[in-house]
């Protein structure tokens, strides 16, 4: 899935609300991934 998302461009189809919501969720997810990485680094 990650590769798919990484390699393919997002085109069209954006609804009026979904872009902003998607952006917000990406932000949250990024935070979560960053925290996970910190945890892993700490464990190491």
């Amino acid at each position, binding site marked *: 899935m990650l590769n798919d998302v990484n390699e393919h461009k997002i085109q*069209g189809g954006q609804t009026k609300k979904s872009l902003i919501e998607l952006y917000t969720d990406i932000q949250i997810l990024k935070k979560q991934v960053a925290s996970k990485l910190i945890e892993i680094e700490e464990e190491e």
Partner: protein
Amino acid sequence: MSNTIKIDKLYDIIHDMKDNIDNCEFSKQELLEFQRCLDVLEEHVKTMIIEQSLLDNEQLNKDINDAINKLKNKQEINSQNTKEKDIEIPDILTKSKEERDLERKEKIKEREVKELEELLQKSGNVENFIKAICKEELKSDEKYQQLVDRCVTCFKRNGYIQTMDGKPLFSIKENSGLDFDENESTKKILSNGGTKFTAVYENKPKTVSFHGYEPNYELIDKYGELVIDPQLLRELYEYTLVTDEVASEQSELLDIQSKLGDMKYVKENYRESKFLEVDTDIQKLISETAEYINLNKQDENIPAKDNKFIRIFNNIFRKKQIEKENNNKNVQKKYQKNKIDTIMKNIQQNREESPINYELIYTMYYTLAKVSTEDKEEKGYGLFEKLDKNAFIKSLGENEFDEKTLDLMYTLSCSDKIESTDIQKYIEDNIQSLKKDMTQQQLKVAKVMGKKNDKWSELSNRTKDIVRQGIYSGKDIKNIFKTKEKIQEKEKYFDVEQTYGIDGINECTALIILNILENCKNNREITQETLQQLIEQGDITKDQSQEWQETAEQISRIWQGKLKNIDSER
């Protein structure tokens, strides 16, 4: 796999991930890859939001700058705090876990602000705004939701509508029932990478419609001035008058040409002696009729003083019918009846072929009858009395003969015998007279046509000026959304009937539309010509020219829609 990922699908994936990340086992490598992937996605989404948002609103830009300043202040405070902490705790290894977490978070913030600043340098306020409103730090700020709302509103407004210099021509009305169609086939990727949507109204796709949209009044006002320009209106009105004049003169010319054609036809037929053949028949008929009347004294008074000559034949015919009833065995009378039928048929046929033929035939028959009667008078009986001109005309009853024809008819009726040269002279005189009339009329038509061309030239130049002004003024539009009162004020301009003394507003606006807006070809030509001049003068670039061209066409459509609405309301 399709190279297009639907945003809804992507949203579901991300949303799902966000809620379930704690339940997933990721290696450090996977997490780093995921992080890169999210960075890429984040950039894509940012770009799309920027491309599809309208953010040239001054108030909005002010809010953006405020938000950015607030973020910068926060960053400064954070960095000061970090420095203070650095002084207090020189050795990072001695810090607690909480302290180290705090420090990492500060670093993340610093990185984000750095990115923001880079973006700030790269692009304008629009991207900064998007960046700023999406920062989680601002979520606690009460302004955050307002900003997001505004952004969404702008996006909503501009997802579909074409813009000019970054401003929409018109936007979707609140509670209009319009919404974006999610169907893949109804959207277009624009050349600038943005997405253009087709709006739907009451579940039906509606690509362009005035209904359901809030017009951008200032822009439309500018074009309204174009349409209601008093000088232009006056010129349009004058042009209409001249056009009517041309039509009237042309119609008269056609009428003369038609009469001339008819007269030439009579001339040709007369030369072929077609009429004279009929004359022989009528002479025989009249002779026989006179004889018949002479033999039946009780019928002496018919139909000498009756109206139209044609009634003579009708009466005779009626008499013949009565006679037929009385004496069916009379073969000679039967022959006469058949003869009358044939002649009546001929007369009717000639009458249908040409009124002028009929006129001439009538004249000839009448004269023949009179001459014949005078001949008979010598023998003691007569069909007609001697008539003066007034009595002669009266004897014709209601008729549509002109003065010239009546003169001829009377002259002929006074003659002792029919002179073929009289008829020929009459025809020739008529042809010459009509030719003269035609030449005069052709001159008149040429004169009014010249006047019309001059008027069109003035009108065309004025229109070009106004279109140019409209295009220039379109550049300076600052405020996009205005109150409804503005358009209501504009309605007053439509009351040109009183202001400019032009009858019939709908006719007037229809004329304008016909000449300037609705007539796409002319409008487009005028606009293209103007834009070309502007490019040559270095006032605008080719790209701007294209954009303005589209704008002009868009405005045309708005006005057409508007006029339709006005018409239907009336």
